[in-house]
Structures are given as C-alpha cells and as structure tokens.
C-alpha cells in the first residue's frame, strides 16, 4: 500500500521511447511522460466557466453586444468566442466564421504541433503564403508537445519563427535566456499581438520599438498599417489580439517578482508521489489552491483580491466602451453632415483608432486585467480620454453639437 505511493526512483527525463525531432503526435511523447500527457488531454474536455474567463466557449458577442459595434466590419463582429483548452485549437480555428476563402495559412501558425515540422521543411514565408484551405491538408494535430519542447532534451524552445525574429529585432536571443525566463517566453510563441505583413501575409510581431501599447501604436502608425476600416466611424483600425505576454511583462507585480506564466498556469502537482507540471493549462482560478497556494499562504486572500481587481477593470472597461461607442456614433453623425470639415474628421478617426487600440489591449488580453492591473487601468484611462476627444473633434468637424451621441448601450 505504502509502496504504491512512492515516486519512481529517478524522476529525471529518461526517455523510454525515442521521440523524433518535432514529432507532431503528442501521444508518442506521452509514452515517455504519461503524467504530462494525461493532464494535457484534460484541456480537450474542460468546460468550466469563471466570472471573466474559463473554458466554456461562449460567444463574446452575446455576452457583450457592444462588441458588435466596436468591431464593426472586422469579422470579429460576426463570430468571436471565449478561448478554451489547447487541444481544441484546430477544431476552433476551422469552425470560426471569421475564416473565408481568402484566409491565409498564417492562421494556422499558433494552432498545430505540425507547424515546427512544416516550418522546417517549407520555411515560414511559404507556409504563410499558402492558402488556409490548402495548407490545412498537411495539418492534422492540434497544439502539442512539439510547440513547446525540443524532443531530444525536453527543454523549452522557441518554435515559432516569428517570435525568434521579433526577439532579434529587439536585440535579444532566447538561447541565452534562463530556464525561468523560458517558462514565460515559451507562451509568447502564441500569446502575443501579431499582424500579417505584406502580400505574403508574413507573420510578424510589432515589437521593434518595444512591447508597450505606446510602442506598438507607434509601430503601426509608422508603417501606416490597418487591419480593417471601421464600418461605422470609417477609421483605419487595428485589431489587437491576446497580448498576454506584452501586458504581463510590462513591469507587472508578478513579473517583477520573478513569477512565470507556468508558475500560475502549470503549477506543480502530484500524482502519487511524483511531482510534475500540470499540462492542463487553464484558468488558475479553477485551481487556486495549487496555482496561488504555492506562494500565498492565504489563498482566499489572493483570490479575493484577484476578484476585486477584475471587477475594477471590468467596471473601467464599461466606462471606456461607452466612451468609444459615443465617439463612433458621433463621428458617424458628423460624416453624414452635408459638409463636414474632412481634415478635422480625419483627426477624429485617428483618435478613434488610437483609443480603441488601447482599449483592445486590455479587452483582448484574457485576464481581465489581473496580469497587470495598474498597467491595464492606466491604458484604459488613456483610451477613454482619447475616445471622448475623438467625440469632441467630430463635433468640431460637424460644426454643430447636434451630432453628439448621448444614447446608451
């Protein structure tokens, strides 16, 4: 009885089977690492919700219909869901209605363990150029071990060429990073803001000036990039996407204290007596005893504070969304005037663009501010202020306060 509970004597990484480099089938790796594999499998079936996150893939648009106005014309106003566990990545990217027959292969970049092999074979430029439907024929596995680990050593590696290049553009080389740093950087393979550069839809992270929202704004303004044209305000817009890495590393409390993504999202757990990193990556609030308890003696305190922070950020998001919608509707009204001042109207649109980029840096970040509360709130404040300035500019463009939109949403 007691014997059964004992750990295997050697918990090092002795592999029973040799896994080929970049093997896309996680089950193969799982033969060597049954604990990691079996917890990884759980990401498929998790369905629990938390107040602001969790693994149930509800429609974000139904929960908050204002998003339909905010994202008007981008595709995100049609279908946008709460994300869920890693093993669903392939199903989800294939079923989202944002996909159409012009979608490039780039959309597979963060969704499959086949990628490292494909990038090695065909190169990323070719990968990205290939159409989504075409490339899909070579893609059979959702996210898996090969996205994060090097098979021979099991160490964490940067597998996404876009991340390697983005780090290079900042003069950094991940090969020199410490293990604790890699426990955060490995997530940056995917949990980062990106855009598709040029005709070839080349996957690029806009980090050359830095990873703060101000740096990213400057980057996009500089290259005159837009993701889409806003269907109501007409502004040239950027859709910010899951900037978890950028937000977290912007001097947050936990980042500065040396805490990594894996510390919270993959806390050590025990099966029998063996200790390993759970690969059931999900909301730490569904797992707070382990995820927070390792560091905070009072878990209730930690989760209470997390809830407080999230509600403060949520409240502030609401205020900001009201301001953004008021800006959008007022710009629209101004543009319908017989003879608006087009130069001033363009300024209003530019302000709308900048305001919404900031708001989205918080909205599209999936922790409802928890990863970096002060930074999130600071950014939202600036967003709300810019949105109201956009509204004022629209009034000036129209030459009349009659265009001011005072409704509510």
């Amino acid at each position: 009885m007691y014997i059964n509970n004992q750990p295997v004597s050697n918990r090092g990484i002795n592999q029973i089977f040799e896994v080929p480099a970049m093997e896309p089938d996680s089950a193969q790796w799982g033969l060597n690492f049954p604990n990691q594999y079996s917890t990884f499998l759980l990401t498929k079936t998790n369905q629990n919700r938390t107040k602001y996150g969790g693994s149930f893939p509800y429609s974000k648009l139904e929960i908050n219909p204002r998003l339909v106005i905010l994202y008007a014309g981008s595709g995100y106003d049609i279908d946008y869901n709460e994300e869920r566990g890693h093993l669903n990545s392939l199903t989800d990217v294939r079923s989202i209605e944002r996909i159409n027959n012009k979608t490039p292969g780039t959309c597979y970049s963060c969704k499959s363990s086949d990628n490292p092999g494909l990038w090695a074979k065909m190169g990323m430029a070719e990968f990205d150029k290939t159409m989504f439907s075409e490339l899909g024929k070579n893609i059979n596995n959702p996210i898996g071990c090969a996205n994060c680990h090097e098979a021979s050593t099991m160490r964490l590696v940067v597998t996404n060429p876009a991340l390697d290049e983005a780090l290079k553009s900042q003069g950094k080389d991940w090969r020199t990073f410490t293990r604790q740093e890699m426990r955060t950087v490995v997530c940056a393979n995917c949990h980062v803001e990106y855009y598709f550069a040029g005709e070839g839809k080349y996957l690029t992270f806009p980090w050359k000036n830095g990873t703060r929202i101000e740096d990213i704004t400057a980057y996009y303004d500089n290259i005159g990039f837009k993701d889409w044209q806003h269907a109501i305000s007409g502004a040239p817009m950027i859709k910010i996407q899951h900037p978890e890495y950028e937000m977290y590393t912007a001097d947050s409390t936990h980042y500065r204290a040396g805490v990594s993504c894996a510390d919270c999202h993959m806390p050590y757990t025990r099966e029998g007596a063996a200790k390993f990193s759970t690969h059931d990556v999900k909301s730490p609030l569904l797992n707070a005893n382990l995820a927070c308890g390792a560091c905070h003696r009072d878990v209730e305190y930690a989760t209470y504070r997390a809830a407080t922070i999230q509600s403060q950020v949520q409240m502030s998001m609401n205020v900001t969304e009201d301001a953004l919608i008021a800006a959008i509707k007022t710009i629209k009204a101004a543009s319908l005037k017989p003879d608006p001042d087009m130069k001033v109207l363009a300024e209003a649109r530019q302000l709308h663009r900048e305001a919404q980029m900031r708001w989205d840096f918080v909205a599209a970040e999936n922790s409802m501010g928890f990863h970096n509360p002060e930074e999130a709130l600071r950014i939202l404040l600036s967003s709300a202020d810019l949105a109201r300035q956009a509204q004022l500019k629209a009034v000036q463009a129209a030459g009349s306060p009659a265009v001011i939109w005072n409704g509510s949403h």
Partner: protein
Amino acid sequence: MKFLFIAGIFVLVAMGSGTYVNDSDMHISNLTEYIGNTLTACNSCHVMGAVYESWYHGDHKNRAECSDCHIPHDPITKYVVKAESGIRDVTAVITGNVPEVIRTTENSQKIIQGNCLHCHEQTVGNIADSKRNDERYCFECHRTVAHGERGISLSPYQEGK
C-alpha cells in the same frame, strides 16, 4: 487529550515495530530518530523536501532546526504534539492522502509563535503582549525568515538528485 495520548502511543509503537521502515525513501530506522530533534527526521519524508530546501536557504538555517520552531519546548507537550502530528503525517503518507499544498494548522501556528518568542523574548518585550488575544503572528511580517521566499519549488529535474 486522552485521545492524543493513546494516539501517540499508537504511532510510537507503529514506528518501533518497523511496519514501514527500511524503505528507500523513508529513512526512519528507529524510534529515537523521529523523537529526536534532528533534521533528518523531518527530511526523511519526501513531502517535506521543499520546506527542507527552503529552510536550508532561509535565514535561520544556522540558528534553528525544524523542531526548534515546530515542536513546543515544554517537555510534556513536546511528545504529545509529536505523536499527534506524527500520526497525521504518517497516515497521510501511507494512505496517499497528501494535500496538494501543505499548510500549517492553526495549532502549529501557535506553537511556532511560542517558539519565536522563546528565542526572541527579550527583543520583543515592548511590542509583543501575549496577554492580548488579538496578537499578530511574528511571521506575518517576517514572512521569509524561516522558509525563504515561497513558491521556490524544486523542479522535477532537481528533485531526484
């Protein structure tokens, strides 16, 4: 109390009889080692590994061992506490009921507090008034003296070595 004494006798007998000694991971080979104040007693259990490690890197390594803080100094209570926690710890390990995160019980927090005062009484005489029931634990401020920063988990790679 009576229960504790009986339980204590049970565990001491259990340990003495060697039902689970001689295991590669559990070096308790005799009664005296568990009763004694040695570090090896605690560290003999793999689940105590992380706290052992953090104590080792903490500020009190050269000043206090596990039992200096976790076991009352008073000679009678000392063995009762050992028996009580001994039973609980051993049962937990045997049944595999080890909590995912181990935390001190309220009782042991009081014991620790008593032991901080035991050594530092003179220093804190002005500020620590044990007559008042709303006293704060020393380790609410001195969060790292005993076990260093929390969350410095051993990695699975290192743990086996």
